[in-house]
């Protein structure tokens, strides 16, 4: 495990190559689809806008979905890696914190109460709030009592709260079918049909999440060694856990608010990244960010071509691209 593990230069080069590849993918995502554009046309759309249909497609559709894909993919993968340390469970992902289920539940409840008068902008805040409240509840349930915080307790609390939230969600949807149509937009994760505004609203929070998680990366290495070792090395475990939880909520809550629940990336990208750089979180988190963004942007491009002229949900394309890698990496692990 850790293909580049013993060579600093190799890790740095790998990261640089990843970033370059990501830029190429992002450019391709802007250029290719049902309609192909040239680089000069994209340039013109911003430098000299004439309001033509082509330019509107570029500025209002292609560019937003590209940036949303990159930001959401990066954030989900980083949140997943931190979640796997926090719960000490390789299967954990932000959704184990109840973040996705909570966001959707809050949305469905508010659609039920306020009807269709709800603006897109306020829906973003509602799902952010849902994600945070649920995660807070899970964190409290997982860290109270005499044993204090235990990874297993947190995991089980999260799994049950998530299950409960989605059960209530489907109950409400069944009773009130009208909220379904609107909620469906958020219940199926997607990076398409969003506006740049949606991203810029949450971007400060997500960026704070990036910064916070990078600040924590050194401490996470110690936490991963286990409670006794971490305490022995003088780490303030409770504080680190709380800050990690906050970072996860910022990252994954912001993502679900923009793109809806996108699964899979949060679980598998950390494993794919570990294959390259091992368990050092100072490297793992940046690798997760780049590879998560690569996977989601790549999947978004693929989703346009699979059944052209229709698009498949980005989750389908993510699976198509990600599963072969996952199987390869899982088989290559020397000790599992």
């Amino acid at each position, binding site marked *: 495990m850790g293909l580049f593990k013993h060579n600093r230069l190799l890790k740095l080069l790998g990261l640089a190559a990843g970033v370059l590849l990501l830029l190429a993918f992002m450019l391709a995502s802007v250029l290719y689809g049902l309609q192909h554009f040239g680089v000069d046309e994209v340039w013109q759309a911003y430098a000299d806008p004439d309001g033509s249909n082509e330019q509107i497609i570029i500025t209002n559709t292609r560019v937003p979905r590209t940036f949303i894909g990159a930001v959401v993919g990066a954030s989900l993968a980083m949140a997943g890696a931190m979640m796997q340390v926090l719960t000490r469970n390789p299967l954990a992902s932000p959704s184990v914190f109840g973040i996705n289920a909570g966001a959707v539940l809050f949305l469905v409840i508010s659609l039920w109460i306020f009807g269709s008068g709800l603006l897109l902008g306020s829906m973003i805040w509602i799902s952010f709030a849902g994600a945070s409240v649920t995660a807070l509840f899970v964190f409290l349930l997982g860290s109270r009592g005499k044993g204090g915080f235990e990874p297993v307790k947190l995991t089980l609390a999260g799994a049950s709260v998530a299950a409960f939230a989605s059960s209530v969600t489907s109950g409400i949807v*069944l009773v009130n079918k009208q909220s379904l149509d609107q909620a469906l937009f958020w219940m199926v994760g997607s990076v398409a049909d969003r506006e740049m505004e949606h991203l810029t609203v949450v971007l400060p929070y997500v960026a704070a999440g990036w910064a916070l998680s990078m600040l924590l990366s050194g401490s996470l290495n110690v936490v991963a060694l286990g409670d006794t070792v971490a305490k022995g090395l003088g780490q303030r475990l409770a504080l680190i856990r709380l800050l990690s939880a906050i970072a996860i909520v910022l990252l994954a809550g912001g993502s679900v608010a923009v793109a809806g629940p996108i699964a899979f990336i949060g679980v598998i990208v950390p494993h794919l990244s570990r294959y390259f750089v091992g368990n050092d979180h100072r490297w793992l988190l940046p690798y997760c960010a780049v590879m998560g963004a690569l996977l989601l942007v790549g999947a978004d491009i693929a989703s346009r071509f699979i059944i052209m002229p229709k698009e498949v949900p980005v989750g389908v394309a993510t699976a198509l691209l990600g599963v072969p890698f996952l*199987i390869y990496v899982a088989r290559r692990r020397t000790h599992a």
Partner: protein
Amino acid sequence: MLKAIKGRGHLIVLLLGLATLLLSLLSLSMGSTRIPVMEVVQTILGQNNESSGLVILEFRLPRIVAALLIGAAMAVSGVLLQGVIRNPLAAPDLLGVTGGASVAVVAFMTLSAGVYSIHFVPFIAIAGAFCAAAVNYVLAWKRGVSPLRLVLIGIGISTAMGALTTFLLINGPAYMASQVLNWLTGSIYGTNWKNVAALSPWVAAGLSVAYLYAKELDVLTLGEEIASGLGIRLQFNRLLLLAISVALSGAAVGVAGTISFIGLLAPHMARKLVGNSHRVLLPAAALLGAVILLLADLAGRMLFQPMDIPAGVFTAGIGAPFFMYLLYKSSR
């Protein structure tokens, strides 16, 4: 001390058994027409020739028996999987069982377009479940399977299956989608004695073999080194227990569709109640699973009459608060 815990475990299993029985009777008496419990008892004893007897014997009883069997099967399947994989997040859907069954059923429904009878669905689902689990096992095999490799590849397989299901749903005819979605939520609406007859051999065989291997499960839970140190045939036991787990959940999924939550959390509930020894854990989990699905089905029948809501919607709604309470209490 140890004996006291053991005695408590048996007592809890006994209480759960009684609760299951009482709730079944209650559930038999409730419905669009209420039938007094005494009449229910008379009917089961064969002393009721009125129309209420028909309602009970032909409509309600098979459905309730199916709920009990399916709930127990899912819960035990989860116990086996969590014992073998040694991960609290392990659940039957993780091996691709539910995903495989879904793909098979959706493919069958969309491709056959109503030419073949709907009665084939359970068999198609079981075949799909087994295929997906087998692919998972083969891909995870590399001088033996390791639990982590199995679940990582399992995540991949189940995600791929989910993607395939979605893909088939979008490309298929629209009327098919609602039928399939109904199946996917998990419902035991309209189960009859034929379903029960098809289900019971699987469940009976699965539960009894699982119980026979309770000791091996205890040892496997201790970890790889200790297990092989104690002379357990690691790979053989893993394969056998996984196969039983797949058979149980496959059969359940075949009849009821994908019922979530029970396979994941009923085992944890049972652990909080009776501890980790599989000899009491297995029966306790089976009974808990049965009770949860029974209550979920009852809620689905009664809460929004005349609508019959799929039981899969309520399993977590009923089970999760109870589990959170157990989690809260055990941590004090």
